[in-house]
């Protein structure tokens, strides 16, 4: 019997009172109410490679410690990302009636993964980002200049979503006035009906097909035009990607939209929240704005915008002393590994001037490591540099609201008040 969503909502008095075998850290409500951290702390202490025999996602292993996660992530010949085996999240891909069977290189193994990734990787390579930086900075400045000082506003809607959508539109060279479509498609891609973003999987399917048709139009315009540093032109011109089947074309587009949108959006919001919860760190930043460079990776560790990636064992294997069987579902909880006190000093604290801040799991490791990591860091660096020029304090004035998702660690609303210098 799969656990129902209603049962999942029942919360125990204390995490320690739950029998170990009943712990199901994939329960999305634990992320919405932000209590999952206590469960991970217990698993890291008592059962770091934990088997959950029963959940609505089926049985799965949770890998919760930093070094065990790296070991799985770098063992792609044993731990597969293949969509047909279930793909990359605890919720199996292709498992829902009415869903599209999307194909994307994040959910492929070698050699196809390598070919497709290499084709699109240059758009987010450091040299191309140098060209994008002034455009992103100008657009970030314009967003911040448009905000009212001293009034309550929603930081998520007016800044985090706006900035990441604008960046995405820049990368795709997407028609500027229609860029809100990108936000919608990003939300729809990761939505299930219970989130309220779509009403049914059929609706999701319809909207994503519209997305594909829209991009097909841009593709057709650009395929015969030489050059173009935008992602559509690159995919249309590369031998590895130009003859993609329809669901692969759509899948890879959505991968880049979600990858470039849902993630950094939440790090932008999460950084504001973390600085408000740690006023001493905020003061350090005001006193020394050069700390932005070490604060950015710390924000990305702290937020961990994607909580996990999942693999499927292609053969029997061992992780942290536990025997994994061929076919088992293995979930690497980056959010937990990023709080592993045996690897990260004072892992449960947000510290903007850490000695080694880049040593975190948020981008994953191995061949599937986040391709857009430098773009994420660039956007965060720019927005913080521009915030510090304009505002003394971005003050959180109400409770944040969080996304109902066990994959995207999302902040859906963050009321703030801006204070000028």
């Amino acid at each position, binding site marked *: 019997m799969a656990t129902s969503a209603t049962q999942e909502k029942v919360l125990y008095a204390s995490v320690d009172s739950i029998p170990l075998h009943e712990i199901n850290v994939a329960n999305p409500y634990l992320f919405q109410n932000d209590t999952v951290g206590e469960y991970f702390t217990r698993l890291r202490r008592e059962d770091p490679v934990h088997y959950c025999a029963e959940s609505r996602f089926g049985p799965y292993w949770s890998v919760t410690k930093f070094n065990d996660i*790296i070991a799985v*992530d*770098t063992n*792609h010949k044993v731990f597969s990302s293949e969509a047909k085996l279930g793909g990359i999240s605890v919720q199996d891909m292709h498992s829902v009636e009415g869903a599209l069977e999307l194909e994307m290189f994040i959910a492929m193994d*070698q050699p196809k993964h*390598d070919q497709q*990734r*290499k084709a699109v*990787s*240059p758009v*987010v*390579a*450091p*040299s191309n980002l140098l060209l994008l930086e002034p455009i992103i900075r100008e657009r970030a400045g314009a967003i911040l200049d448009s905000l009212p000082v001293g009034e309550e506003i929603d930081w998520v809607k007016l800044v985090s979503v706006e900035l990441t959508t604008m960046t995405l539109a820049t990368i795709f060279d997407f028609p500027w006035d229609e860029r809100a479509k990108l936000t919608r498609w990003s939300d729809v891609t990761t939505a299930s009906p219970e989130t309220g973003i779509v009403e049914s999987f059929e609706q999701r399917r319809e909207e994503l097909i519209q997305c594909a048709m829209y991009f097909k139009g841009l593709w057709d315009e650009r395929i015969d035009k030489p050059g173009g540093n935008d992602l559509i032109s690159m995919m249309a011109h590369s031998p590895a990607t130009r003859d993609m089947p329809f669901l692969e074309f759509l899948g890879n587009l959505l991968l880049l939209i979600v990858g470039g949108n849902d993630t950094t959006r939440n790090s932008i919001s999460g950084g504001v929240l973390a600085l408000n919860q740690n006023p001493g760190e905020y003061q350090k930043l005001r006193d020394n704005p050069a700390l932005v460079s070490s604060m950015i990776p710390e924000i990305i560790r702290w937020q961990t915008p994607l909580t996990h990636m999942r693999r499927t064992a292609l053969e029997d294997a061992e992780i942290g002393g536990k025997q994994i069987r061929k076919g088992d579902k293995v979930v690497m909880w980056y959010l937990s590994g990023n709080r592993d006190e045996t690897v990260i000093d004072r892992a449960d604290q947000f510290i903007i001037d850490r000695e080694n801040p*880049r*040593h975190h799991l948020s*981008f994953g*490791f*191995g*061949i599937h*490591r986040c*391709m857009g990591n*430098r773009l994420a860091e660039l956007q965060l660096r720019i927005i913080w540099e521009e915030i510090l020029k304009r505002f003394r304090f971005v003050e959180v004035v109400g409770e944040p609201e969080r996304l109902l998702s066990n994959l995207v660690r999302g902040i859906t609303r963050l009321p703030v008040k801006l204070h000028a210098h």
Partner: protein
Amino acid sequence: MINVTFVSADGTRRSVEIDEGLSAREAALFNSVPGIDGDCGGVCACATCHVHVDQAWMDRVGPPEEGGMESDLIQFAEGTTETSRLACQIPMVPELDGLVLHLPELQH
């Protein structure tokens, strides 16, 4: 001690000493040579310690093992050439005393 010279993209040369048995990644990081990030901690998991081995040293360093993790990762670094290696996979052995490594402008 093993001597390694890192040549930055702008031509700046930095000569450093490192204990035998460590890697070229550590030679850079422990001596504050800019241009190497080494995000994964030196376990061949991220490709942010990409370097170009000086042509004169390529025979002694050799290419990454075919089909191994280093080859799998290095293909996604920017501006790779036939002399590309991950610094964490170059052990500091006496035969490499005097090694010259060229740093890319930026790590992906």
